[in-house]
C-alpha cells in the first residue's frame, strides 16, 4: 500500500535517474569540447579518455585560421539580417491581422498558418532554382531572403495573440491625442511587444545559425560558407585530424548555446504559453 506517500521511489532514486539523464544528454557535447583539448595520438590510443596533457593547439589553431572567422562572420550576418527581417515583416503583418478588420484577413491568416507545416526542406529544390534565376546564388542574400520567408509563419502565429492583447484603451487614448494608427504602431505597439519580438527573434536567430540544407544548396563557394557548411567541409578536409575537427565543432556551437542559455526562460516560457493556447 503506497497510501498517501506521493513518492514511492524515494529521493535518492530520483536524483540518480536525473544524474544519469544529464550524463547521457550532455555526454556527447562534453566529448566534443574535451576532445578538442587532446591530441590525435591520445584519441587513437584511448578514444574516450581525458586529455593528458591538455593540448591547446587545436583551439588556438582554429581561432587563428581565417576560414573559421570568415564563416563565423557569414553566419552572423545571415542570422542577424534574417532575424531583423523576420521580426520587422512579421510584426507589421501581425499588427494588421491583430488590429484591422478587413475582408481577406481570414485567408491571410490561413495562408501563414498553413506555411507552418512545410519547412524549407520540402521546397528546397525549387527554392534553389528561384534563387538561381534571381542571380543571387553564392551570395548571402540568397540564403537570407528564403529564410525570412520560411520563418514568417512561426513569427506571425506567435505575435498575433501578443498584439491583440494590447488593451484597446491605450489605442483610444492615443487616438484622442491625435496619434495616427501608424504612429500608434511605431510609438506604442512596437515598444509594448518587445518581449514577443525577442522570443520570435531568438527562435529565428538559432534556426538561422543552425540551418544547413538551404546554405548547402545556395552557397557552393568556400568564401560564402556559413559555419554549418564550414564544419562539414572541415570535417571532410581534416578527416584524419579528429582533434582539430572537435575543436572546430565545439567553437561553432558556442553562439547558439550562449543565446539559448541567456534566453532559455523566454524560449521554454513561450513554448509553455503555446501549449496552453
Amino acid at each position, binding site marked *: 500500500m*503506497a497510501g*498517501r*506517500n*506521493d*513518492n*514511492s521511489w524515494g*529521493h535518492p532514486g530520483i536524483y540518480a535517474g536525473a544524474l544519469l539523464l544529464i550524463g547521457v*544528454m*550532455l555526454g*556527447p*557535447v562534453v566529448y566534443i569540447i574535451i576532445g578538442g583539448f587532446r591530441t590525435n595520438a591520445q584519441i*587513437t590510443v584511448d*578514444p*574516450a579518455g581525458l586529455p593528458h596533457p591538455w593540448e591547446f593547439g587545436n583551439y588556438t589553431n582554429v581561432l587563428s585560421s581565417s576560414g573559421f572567422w570568415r564563416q563565423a562572420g557569414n553566419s552572423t550576418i545571415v542570422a542577424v539580417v534574417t532575424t531583423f527581417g523576420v521580426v520587422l*515583416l512579421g510584426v507589421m503583418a501581425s*499588427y494588421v*491581422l491583430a488590429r*484591422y*478588420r478587413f475582408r481577406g484577413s481570414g485567408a491571410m491568416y490561413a*495562408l501563414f*498558418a498553413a506555411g*507552418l*507545416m512545410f519547412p524549407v526542406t*520540402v*521546397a*528546397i*529544390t*525549387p527554392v534553389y*532554382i*528561384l534563387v538561381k534565376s534571381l542571380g543571387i546564388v553564392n551570395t548571402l542574400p540568397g540564403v537570407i*531572403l528564403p529564410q*525570412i*520567408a520560411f520563418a514568417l509563419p*512561426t513569427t506571425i*502565429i506567435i505575435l498575433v*495573440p501578443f498584439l*491583440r492583447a494590447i488593451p*484597446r484603451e491605450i489605442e483610444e487614448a492615443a487616438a484622442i491625442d491625435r496619434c495616427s*494608427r501608424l504612429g500608434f504602431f511605431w510609438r506604442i505597439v512596437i515598444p509594448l511587444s518587445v518581449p514577443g519580438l525577442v522570443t520570435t527573434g531568438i*527562435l*529565428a536567430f*538559432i534556426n538561422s545559425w*543552425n540551418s*544547413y*540544407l538551404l546554405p548547402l544548396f545556395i552557397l557552393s563557394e568556400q568564401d560564402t560558407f556559413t*559555419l*554549418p557548411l564550414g564544419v562539414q567541409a572541415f570535417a571532410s578536409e581534416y578527416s584524419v585530424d579528429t582533434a582539430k*575537427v*572537435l575543436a572546430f565543432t565545439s567553437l561553432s*556551437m558556442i553562439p*547558439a*548555446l550562449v543565446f*539559448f542559455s541567456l534566453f*532559455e526562460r523566454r524560449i521554454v516560457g*513561450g*513554448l*509553455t504559453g*503555446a*501549449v496552453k*493556447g
Partner: protein
Amino acid sequence: MAGSLVIADHVRDGGGVQPPPPARPRRRGIGWAQRLEILLLAGPAILMFLGFVVAPILIAAYIGLYRWKGFGLPTNFVGFDNYVTILQDSAFWAALRHNGIIVVLSLIFQGPIAVALALLLNQKIRGRSVIRVLIFVPYVIAEVIVGTAWALLLQTNGAVNGVLRSIGLDGLTQDWLANPKLAIWTLIMILTWKYIGFAVILFLAGMQNIPEELAEAAAVDGASYWQTQWRITLPLLGPTIRIWGFLSIIGALQLFDLVYIIWGQYVSSTAGTSTMVTYMVNEGRNAGNYGYGNAVAVVLFVVSMTIALLYQRFVLRRDTEGALTGGR
C-alpha cells in the same frame, strides 16, 4: 528547429483554417487610408511569403514535368515520366520505408521515454530547473554539429566502442554506422537523444496545466502515486501527446541533415538509413537532374500533406471537439 514549438498552438486550434477573431469591431468601414495602411504593413510579408514559399511549390509542380539539367529553360517536356520513374525506383521505396520506420519508432521510443522523464522532472526536486535546461541542450545544437560528433563517437574505433571495451563488454562493440541491420537503430537512438528534450518540455508544460486539486483529491481517496499518474495525469496529457505526435511525424518525414552528415552522400542507402529528402538531394541536385528532383519534391509534399491531413482528421479532431465542447 525551435521554431516548430509554436505549431502546437496552431495545430491544437484545429489546423488554423479559421481566422482569429478580430480584436474588436471597427466602428467605421474601412476607407482608402486604412487600405493603404494594410497594404503597407502586410504587403512586404505577403510578397515574401508568396515569392519564396508558395511560388517554389508551384515551380516544382511545373518543372517536375520536364527532364531538365538546370541550365536555360526547361524545354524537354516528359509529362509524368519523372513520376513514373520515381514510383518504379526501388531506392525511392526503400527511402519511403525508412521514413515510415523512423516515424513509427520515433513515436514508440520518444513518447514513453519522454512521458517518464516528464513525470520524473515534474517532482519537486532540487535543481529541477537546471535539469530542464540541460536536457534541452541537444535540441538547440545544430544537426551538423550533433551529426559530426556522433559520427566520430560511433566509428568502429570511436569512443562508444572504446568505453565498451574498457568496461569489459567487448562483445557489445559494433560497427554502429555501417552494419545495415543496426544502422537504422543507431539513427533512432541519435534522434531520440536529439529530440527527446523537446518532447519532455512540451509534456512538462502540459502537466503544469493539470490542476493540482485533482491529484490531491485522488490522494485523499487513497490513490497511489502511480494510480494518480495513470488515471489522471496521462489522460489529461492526451492532447499534448497527440500534438507532439503530429510534430514528430512531420519532422520524421522530412529528416535530412543528420542522415546526410553522418552517413554521407553514398552510404545512407547501403546502410539502410536513406530518407525521401536524402533521395531527393542525391537524385536531384547532386545528380544534376533538376526536373527529377522537383518531381520528388512534389511527391514529398503530397506525402507530408496527406499524412498531416489524415492525422488532423482522425487523431486531432477529438481535441478540437473537446476544445469546443469543453468551453476552452
